[in-house]
C-alpha cells in the first residue's frame, strides 16, 4: 500500500488494468453523462423571465410562422449544468500543453477577455454615427500601426474575419492589381508548394486562379529547380502563395530569391502568415519581398480559438497592392478618425467589400491588449522562446522519434513515422497521447512527410511542462517502435473511445430528430 503526500493510503493493491465498472447513471465519477437538450428540455420551459406582452399589436401583415419551431428550453440551473458538464468533456490550453502544429495554441490572457467586454467596445453598434465611436476607430488605427510596424509593410486591410478570409483578401488584391494592369485574362497561374495549408489552393481557386503545385526538396523547402522551371519563359504567372516559416517548421532559406524571381516573372508574393509567431521582432516580412500576408490574431496575438473561432485575419499589403485594399478602412485627419466605407469615383481600384461592417472588433481589442502587455521587447522574447521550446522538444524527442529534416526548426518540430513498427500509425501515437493527458499533435500534415507529426509547443509552456510532455511522448514512441498493439485501441481513458467516422460520413445525421421519425425514415 502506498501513501499520498498527506499520509493517506492511495488505492490499495489496485489491479493494473482498468476494471470494467458499470454505473447506473452512465456517469463516471466527475465525467457526467449528459443527454441532448432535445431529450432533456421542453418547448414549454424557459430559462428567461420577460415582461408580459401587451397584446393587440400586429403589423406583420400575415407573414407569420405557421408551424411550431420545435426548440427545447431549459431553466437556468439546468442550462448551466448542461454546458458545464459538456465542457468537462473538452481538452483545452488551460488544462495542459496543446501541441497542434501550425495552430499556435498559446495561453489566452484573461486581461484580453476583460477589456473586450468593456461596454465601450462590446456595446457599440457598427452603424452608429462615427462621431460616437472615435475610440473604436482609434483602436483599429492603433492596432493597424502595430501590425504595419511589426511586418514592415505600408498598409493593412483589417476586415478579414479569419486566416482563410485574409488569404482571400490578399489574393483579391493581387487580382485587382492584375485587372489594373490589364493582365487578369492572361495571368491565371498561382504557384503553391505541396506542403501548403489546404486553404491556400482553395483560396487561389476561389479567386479565379489555377493552382500549380511546386515540389518540396529534401531539406523541406521549396525545390528551387522545380520553382524556376515553372517560371521559365512563362507569361501566365499571377503569383505564389508561400507559408514562411513553412509548414515543415522551417524558414525558407531562398525566400529573397523566390520573391525576386516571382516579381521578375510579373507575379506577386502572397505569404501565409500562420506561422508569424516564430519571427515577430526578428524578421519583418516586408524585408523579404512579401506583397501580401494575413496575420492570424488568434494564433500569433493570443486571441482565444474558442473551439474553432472566431478568428481574425488582418492582411498587410505592400506598396504595389495597397491601393487594392477592400473597404472599409480607417483614416485619421487632425486627430479625428474617419471610416471610409465607399471608394469615391468610378474606376476605383478597390475590389469592394469582404463582409458586412468593419471586421472582428472583439478580436482587435484582445490582440491590442496582448501587444501592449508584451511590448516590442516582449513580443521578440515570445518568438524566441517559442523557437527555443520547439528546438528543445526536437532535441529531446529525436532520441526515439525520426525528425523529418536535419537541423534546427523554427517554432514547431516535425517528425515522420519512420521509427514506428509495422502496423503502428501516427494516429495510434496521437490517440495514446490522449490517455497521457495531452492533446495530440497535428497529424498527417504537411502532406510531404509520411505519417507527419507536427508539434508546436508555443512560448507559454514552462520547461517543467515540456519535460513532462517529452517523458510521455517518448514512452509512447518506444511502444510504437516496439510494435505494442495496445496503442491500436487507444484512447482508453478519454470521455469517449475512438469514434466511428466512417459511419458518420456514410449516413450523415446532422441534427436531432424525433426517435419515431428516425424509425419511419
Amino acid at each position, binding site marked *: 500500500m502506498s501513501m499520498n503526500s498527506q499520509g493517506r493510503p492511495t488505492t490499495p493493491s489496485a489491479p493494473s488494468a482498468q476494471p470494467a465498472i458499470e454505473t447506473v447513471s452512465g456517469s463516471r465519477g466527475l465525467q457526467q453523462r449528459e443527454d441532448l437538450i432535445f431529450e432533456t428540455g421542453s418547448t414549454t420551459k424557459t430559462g428567461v423571465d420577460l415582461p408580459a*406582452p401587451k397584446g393587440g399589436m400586429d403589423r406583420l401583415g400575415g*407573414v407569420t410562422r405557421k408551424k411550431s419551431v420545435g426548440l427545447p428550453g431549459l431553466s437556468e440551473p439546468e442550462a448551466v449544468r448542461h454546458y458545464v458538464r459538456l465542457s468537462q468533456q473538452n481538452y483545452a490550453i488551460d488544462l495542459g500543453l496543446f501541441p497542434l502544429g501550425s495552430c499556435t*495554441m498559446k495561453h489566452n490572457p484573461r486581461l484580453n477577455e476583460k477589456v473586450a467586454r468593456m461596454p465601450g467596445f462590446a456595446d*457599440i453598434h457598427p452603424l452608429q454615427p462615427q462621431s460616437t465611436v472615435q475610440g473604436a476607430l482609434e483602436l483599429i488605427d492603433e492596432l493597424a500601426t502595430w501590425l504595419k510596424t511589426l511586418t514592415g509593410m505600408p498598409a493593412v486591410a483589417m476586415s478579414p474575419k479569419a486566416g482563410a478570409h485574409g488569404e*482571400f483578401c490578399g489574393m483579391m488584391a493581387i487580382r485587382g492589381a492584375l485587372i489594373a494592369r490589364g493582365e487578369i485574362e492572361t495571368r491565371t497561374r498561382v504557384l503553391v508548394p505541396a506542403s501548403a495549408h489546404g486553404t491556400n489552393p482553395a483560396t487561389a481557386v476561389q479567386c479565379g486562379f489555377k*493552382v500549380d503545385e511546386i515540389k518540396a526538396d529534401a531539406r523541406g523547402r521549396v525545390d528551387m529547380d522545380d520553382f524556376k522551371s515553372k517560371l521559365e519563359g512563362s507569361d501566365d504567372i499571377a503569383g505564389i502563395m508561400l507559408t514562411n516559416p513553412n509548414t515543415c517548421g522551417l524558414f*525558407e532559406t531562398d525566400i529573397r530569391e523566390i520573391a525576386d524571381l516571382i516579381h521578375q516573372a510579373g507575379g506577386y508574393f502572397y505569404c501565409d502568415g500562420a506561422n508569424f509567431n516564430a519571427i515577430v521582432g526578428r524578421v519583418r516580412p516586408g524585408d523579404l519581398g512579401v506583397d501580401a500576408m494575413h496575420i492570424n490574431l488568434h494564433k500569433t496575438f493570443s486571441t482565444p480559438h474558442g473551439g474553432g473561432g472566431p478568428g481574425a485575419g488582418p492582411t498587410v499589403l505592400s506598396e504595389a497592392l495597397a491601393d487594392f485594399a477592400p473597404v472599409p478602412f480607417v483614416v485619421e485627419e487632425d486627430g479625428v478618425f474617419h471610416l471610409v466605407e465607399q471608394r469615391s469615383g468610378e474606376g476605383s481600384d478597390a475590389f469592394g467589400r469582404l463582409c458586412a461592417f468593419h471586421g472582428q472588433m472583439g478580436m482587435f481589442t484582445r490582440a491590442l491588449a496582448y501587444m501592449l502587455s508584451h511590448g516590442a521587447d516582449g513580443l521578440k522574447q515570445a518568438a524566441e522562446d517559442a523557437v527555443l521550446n520547439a528546438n528543445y522538444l526536437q532535441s529531446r524527442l529525436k532520441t526515439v522519434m525520426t525528425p523529418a529534416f536535419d537541423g534546427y526548426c523554427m517554432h514547431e518540430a516535425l517528425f515522420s513515422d519512420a521509427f514506428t513498427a509495422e502496423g503502428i500509425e501516427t494516429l495510434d501515437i496521437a490517440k495514446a497521447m490522449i490517455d497521457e493527458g495531452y492533446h495530440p499533435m497535428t497529424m498527417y500534415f504537411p502532406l510531404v512527410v509520411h505519417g507527419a507529426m507536427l508539434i508546436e509547443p508555443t*512560448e507559454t509552456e514552462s520547461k517543467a511542462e515540456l519535460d513532462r510532455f517529452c517523458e510521455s511522448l517518448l514512452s509512447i514512441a518506444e511502444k510504437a517502435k516496439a510494435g505494442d498493439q495496445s496503442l491500436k485501441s487507444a484512447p482508453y481513458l478519454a470521455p469517449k473511445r475512438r469514434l466511428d467516422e466512417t*459511419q458518420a460520413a456514410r449516413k450523415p445525421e446532422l441534427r436531432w430528430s424525433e426517435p419515431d421519425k428516425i424509425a419511419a425514415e
Partner: protein
Amino acid sequence: MRYLPLTPEDRKEMLATIGAASVDEFYTDVPEAARLGGKITGLPDHQGELAVERHMGALAAKNRTASEGPFFVGCGAYKHHVPATVDHIIQRSEFLTTYTPYQPEIAQGTLQSLFEFQSQVAALTAMEVANASMYDGSTACAEAAVMACRVTRRQKVVLSGGLHPHYAAATRTVCEAQGIEIVQLAPGVDDELALVDAVDDETACVIGQSPNVFGTVTDLTPVADAAHEKKALLVSVFTEAVALGMTMPPGEMGADIAVGEGQSIGNPLNFGGPYVGLFACSKKLMRQMPGRLCGETVDADGNRGFVLTLSTREQHIRRDKATSNICTNAGLCTLAFTAHMTLLGEKGLGHLAQLNHEAACMLADALEGVPGVELLTPRFFNEFAFRIPGDAGDVLEKLDGLGVVGGVRASRLYPGKGLDDVIIAAATECTSEADIKAYADALATVLS
C-alpha cells in the same frame, strides 16, 4: 513578462541540451540582410496589467454605448439583452481555450454543442439541415450564392433590392472573382417579389431577404415557385434571427438555402464582429454545403458521440477542389447562440419576438404622430424605414445632440440612390416606452 514561463536559467539549460550557443543559431536561415539587430523601434515596451487596462479603458470611454440612452440603430446588428449565464458559459476554459474539434474523443463538449446548434438553426429556419456556422451573415450569403452556382451549374445570381447592401457587396466580391454574373435589382422598400420576374433559365439562384434591410417582411413563396419553375434555387436571407420566432421562416416559403446573421441571439454588438453566420439547406444539397459539419456516430464501445463529418468537401482534404476555403468559423459565437437559445426555448423565443414586435409597433405609432414623418415599410417585425422632410444625416446628428441615436441614414448604405431623406430605425426588447417617447419628442423638436 507575465506570459512567459521560461526563466533565464531555463533558457541556458535548454540551449545546452540542444547544443546551441544562443537563439541566434536558430535564425541563421534568415537572409542576412533581413535579420533585425535590436528590437523593432517605434513601439512601446511591455507594460503591466493596470497600465494596459487604463489605456484600453481610455479608448472605450470615447465611445457612446447602446445602453447609454435611447438607441434605435439596426440594419444587420441589433441591441438585445444577453443573459449573464451565456457569457459565463462561453468563458469556461474548456470552451474558450480549445481548438476546432479535430480529436473527437476529447472534444465532445464542443461537438455536442455544435450538434445542438445545428439542430436549433435547422428548426429556427424550418430547414432540414444546418452547418456549424460561417463567419457572419454576409459571408454566409456569399457562400450560398457560390453553392447555388455549383449545384445548378449556372453562373448567374440575382439579388433583391432589399438585400442588405453589405451582404450584396460581399456576395459580389466572391462571385465576380469566379466569373459569376450578378444582377442587382434597384433598392426598394417592398420589392422582394420583383425577383419573380427576374429569374430566367440561366439563373442559378435568386437571393431575397425577409425581414429585408428596410424592415419589410415578405412571404417569398411566389419567388420560390418562380425560381423552381426555372430550376433555380431560392436563397432566403435574414439579418435578425429573433424575427424567425414569429415571422414566416425560409423553410415555410420554399427556400432551398437559408442564410442569416445569428448575432441577435447570445452575442453583443461588438462594433460589427465577431458575429455568427447561420447556414441551412435542404437535405439533398447537404453534400454541397460549405463549412464544418458535426454529425452523430458511435464510439468503439457503442456509445453515442459526435464528430466533424463530410470533410471530403473541405479545404484540408480537397484543397483546390473544396466547396469553400473556410477553416476557422465562429466557434465561440455559436456556443453563445446555442446557450442563449437553450435558455429561451420555443416559449422564450416566441415571447421575445413578440416584445420586439410590440416595441417597433409602438415606435412606429409614436413617430407617425410626428408631423412630416412618412412611414415607408408596410409590414415589419422590429425595424422600419421612414421618410422625413430634410436630410437624414442632419436630422440624425441633431437627434444625437438631444441624446437620441435615431437609426441609420439609408444613404449610408445606399449612397447616391436618392434615399437621403430616409431613416431606418429598429426597436427591441431593450427599448423602453420612455425611449420611444424621447425619440418622438426629439424628432418633433428637430423637424419643427
